């Protein structure tokens, strides 16, 4: 079965329909909402597979289906769908991972009173994300981009009765808005210089070579678009919202902050890659490198289970940006796909742990879950090894290898490459720490002591994701780079990275060993005990645990600035504008006074006389109103006869 590009809109339309159904369903209709959402996403998944088949028929083609939205003076605003291997692969990934997360959520959110809305929001999010992926117009993409932001706002703030959650939702929304402003400016600039926002349009779209050549390469446009990606993908310096967004329910974290939404930025950059000039790429590469390093460093000192994973996401997104910056968007997408699977796996595993441990998230208070939660442990360990880059068996290794390979081959600078290598060590280190703290040793809290394995609705997705995590690496190995060739038909595989591979294997082993040495050999006994790392370097650890004080920095600078501005505006309002308004009101009142006097003295007397006479006439008429319907009818008939006679006699015809 294949799906033609004209019907591509069905993929996002089905979850949207499910969202609508969920909205209209009565309160407490959890089952209806959930089953509709899952059914819709299943259909979307099947359709996506159909789209993939269509796309693979000719990987180099960009199938489009454009239409006019509305006419606008000289031109028209046109939207459209785009189908190429990138779109199709992303669609399959989003729908598949999303589906598993939906299924997981039926278990995780079962007891929540608002679970119905939850599925409604999830469907809305999936619809927006899929719309973003299939868009052939940057305008449509932007619309969906904002919808994704909205859905993430709703989902992060799902438990809005918790002040932290509400604050986190606001933070995420506002922070990403900063990036979106840049994106919007970039789009406007692009429209101004090319006159279209369609990506591919039979040679007229912005990515078609002719137009690209005409554009002549504008660094500013690329960087402005990159601003959007920085916001959405949590790149330095706008990464601060991502860890806070962990206040949402765990499936949300898995769906939005691991698999799909944060990937939107990377996807956007991959999509507009031809637009990016070498200068812009340098900025991107360094931003990515800094983010990768920063995220990994901070992750080492966090104690919240989900926060660690969140910072690891930041770090991995940095890898992807780095890959784009060094010119290998194919590697970025490869890493995006594998990361989506294993990070969703990790988050769902974390969700499983949290659900079982009665919402205990502090790794210091967990521990010893290896026994009671076997399935979760095994799958979580697979995810951890994939993220850490344990060689050969796990997909994370291959995709990370591809990124490092590309960074190594970059001509401009080797600094990003080295930053990547350091991040590899750190990644292996903090993941080892996490697993050791959570799964080994004794339970150190009430929640962990009474934990037990969850239902099949939660473990089944874990198993499937784990399987995918292992298998997915096979499509992008240096010996058989199917994915790379599919995405970019001009991709040349460069064999001979064996040395590099060996280096990274060693580094991974180093990270794992260090982690095990510090945390695994001597297991934590009490939840209050100090972290071994904190014992070695207390100040550095505190600095990292405070997330390098970015939040404080922003509060002290931007926050202060906006407070001052607000105070100014307030003063202006109170003292200047208010006076003007009051003056106008006084003026109006005075006019009214004058009017009233004139009315009462001059006009009213005349009106009184008139209405008196009208009343008298009415009284006279009302006497004719006898209430006898027969009489009325009689008069009508009589009048008719008289009229006709008059006409006949008077010779009116």
């Amino acid at each position, binding site marked *: *079965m294949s799906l033609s590009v004209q*019907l591509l809109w*069905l993929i996002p339309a089905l979850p949207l329909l499910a969202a609508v*159904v969920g909205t209209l369903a*009565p309160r407490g209709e959890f089952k*209806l909402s959930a089953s509709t959402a899952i059914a819709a996403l299943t259909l979307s998944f099947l359709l996506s597979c*159909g789209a993939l088949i269509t796309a693979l028929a000719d990987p180099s083609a960009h199938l489009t289906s454009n239409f006019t939205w509305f006419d606008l003076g000289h031109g028209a605003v046109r939207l459209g769908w785009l189908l190429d291997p990138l779109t199709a692969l992303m669609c399959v990934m989003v729908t598949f991972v999303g589906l598993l997360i939906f299924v997981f959520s039926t278990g995780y959110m079962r007891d929540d009173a608002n679970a119905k809305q939850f599925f409604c929001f999830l469907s809305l999010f999936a619809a927006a994300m899929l719309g973003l992926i299939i868009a052939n117009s940057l305008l449509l993409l932007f619309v969906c981009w904002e919808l994704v932001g909205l859905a993430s706002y709703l989902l992060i703030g799902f438990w809005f009765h918790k002040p932290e959650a509400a604050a986190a939702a606001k933070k995420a929304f506002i922070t990403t808005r900063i990036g979106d402003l840049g994106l919007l400016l970039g789009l406007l600039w692009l429209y101004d210089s090319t006159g279209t926002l369609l990506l591919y349009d039979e040679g007229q779209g912005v990515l078609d070579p002719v137009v690209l050549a005409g554009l002549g390469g504008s660094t500013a446009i690329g960087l402005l678009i990159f601003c959007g990606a920085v916001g959405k993908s949590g790149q330095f310096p706008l990464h601060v919202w991502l860890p806070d967004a962990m206040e949402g329910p765990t499936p949300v974290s898995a769906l939005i902050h691991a698999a799909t939404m944060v990937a939107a930025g990377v996807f956007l950059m991959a999509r507009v890659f031809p637009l990016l000039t070498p200068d812009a790429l340098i900025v991107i590469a360094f931003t990515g490198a800094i983010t990768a390093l920063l995220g990994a460093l901070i992750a080492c000192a966090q104690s919240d289970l989900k926060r660690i994973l969140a910072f690891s996401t930041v770090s991995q997104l940095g890898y992807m940006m780095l890959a784009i910056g060094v010119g290998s968007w194919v590697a970025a997408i490869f890493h995006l796909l594998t990361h989506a699977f294993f990070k969703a796996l990790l988050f769902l595993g974390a969700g499983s742990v949290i659900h079982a441990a009665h919402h205990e998230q502090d790794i210091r208070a967990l521990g010893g879950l290896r026994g009671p939660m076997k399935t979760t442990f095994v799958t979580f360990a697979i995810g951890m090894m994939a993220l850490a880059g344990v060689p050969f068996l796990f997909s994370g290794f291959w995709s990370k290898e591809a990124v490092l390979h590309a960074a190594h081959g970059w001509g401009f600078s080797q600094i990003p490459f080295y930053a990547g290598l350091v991040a590899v060590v750190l990644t292996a280190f903090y993941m080892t720490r996490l697993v050791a703290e959570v799964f080994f040793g004794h339970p150190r809290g009430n929640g962990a002591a009474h934990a037990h394995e969850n239902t099949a609705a939660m473990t089944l997705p874990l198993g499937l994701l784990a399987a995918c995590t292992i298998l997915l690496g096979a499509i992008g190995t240096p010996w058989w780079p199917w994915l790379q060739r599919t995405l970019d038909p001009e991709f040349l595989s460069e064999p001979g990275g064996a040395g590099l591979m060996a280096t990274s294997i060693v580094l991974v082993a180093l990270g794992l060993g260090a982690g095990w040495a510090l945390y695994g050999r001597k297991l934590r006994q009490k939840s209050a005990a100090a972290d071994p790392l904190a014992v070695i370097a207390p100040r550095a650890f505190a600095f990292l645990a405070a997330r390098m004080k970015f939040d404080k920095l922003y509060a002290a600078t931007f926050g202060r600035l906006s407070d001052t501005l607000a105070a100014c505006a307030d003063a202006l309002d109170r003292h200047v504008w208010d006076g003007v308004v009051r003056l106008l009101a006084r003026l109006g009142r005075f006019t009214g006074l004058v009017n009233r006097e004139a009315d009462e003295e001059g006009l009213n007397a005349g009106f009184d006389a008139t209405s008196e006479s009208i009343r008298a006439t009415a009284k006279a008429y009302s006497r004719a109103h006898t209430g006898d319907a027969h009489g009325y009818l009689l008069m009508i008939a009589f009048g008719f006869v008289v009229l006709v006679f008059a006409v006949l006699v008077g010779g009116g015809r």
Partner: protein
Amino acid sequence: MNADSILERGPLLVRDWLVSFLPEPARWLAGSLLAITAVIVAFASLFALLTLIERKVLARVQNRPGPNRVGIPLTKIRLFGLGQPLADGIKMLTKEDIVPRSADRVLHFLAPVALLAFAILTFAVIPFGRHLVPVELEAGVLYFFAAGAATELAVFMAGWASRNKYSLLAAMRALAQLISYELPLLLSVVPVVMLAGTLSTTGIVERQGGWTFGLLPQWHVFTPWGAAGFAIFFVAALAESNRSPFDLPEAESELIAGHLTEYSGFKYALFFMAEYFGMCALCGMGVTLFLGGWQAPLSFLAFIPSYIWFGAKLMTLLLAFMWVRATLPRLRIDQLTRLAWKFLVPLALVNLGVAAFWSLSADWTGAVRLTRWLIAAMLLAGPFVLLGRKLTAGLAPRIYRYAT
């Protein structure tokens, strides 16, 4: 099969042959009379047969053999009780015809006659076979329902003319029921007319010819809106023909037979006959509108003449009526009207919307047709579930306590 084969045209040929003995000017009249006679005789004998079959089916459902004694008169041959209708008829005809003293004699007499007349009128537009339509009207469906609507008048006449308060009250209730269910009945037919684009019954049947993939007949009932419409039509037809579980108007056990209380003998038999005629006509309409009329279900079965297919489908539907009667208990009057107004009418309106979607998406091809199907089915299933919940809200399953 060939539309002009000898079997297919058989009835027409017989008619032409019979008419050919008459002079030219009388032929048209004689032909019409012949057709009318054929329809009336066919359905009168079907009525006789149905009374027997119904009793047999009910008996079988209750694990009894049913009437099986009366066979050929004056012999010992029983023939599964085939003579029963004859015996019943003789009994009915020889019973005393009682007219209450204060009854309105004229209306009392006119009521059964009018009912039967209107019931027979409805047969005029039903296509019994490829060439067998008594009257080809362009607005056939409208005619059918116009003539059907007039039966209410006869029911009222019967109730009022009896000068019996139970009769009158029951007649009013019957009217309320008939009017309530007229609405879903009509609304369930509208999608068919909309999709077929014609009000002519023959036209509607011809639209349902052909087979998808050469296998599935393109009857309306095999589409989502058609299935829903047929279900609504079926329920409403049950109510319109006063059949169980909607047989309140003549509930002998509780409501002393309603507007039929003061009728006996031949007039009662006429009522009975009219009810069965009405049922046959409604079933015939249901077959025409939803079940493909005289079309054969499978292409290789098309050699069987069309009127036989029509008859088979008609019989199936009638048997379904009996089956329902054998199964379901009688509704209360408030339940009955609530079902009509709060469930069937909204559902029929939703179905109208689905039919509109269907006709707008007629150009979807290939695999998307499955999507079209699913969307239509979902659009129907959702309201069905919600309306059903609303209908049964607050009603717990009844727990029966039996004496032990």
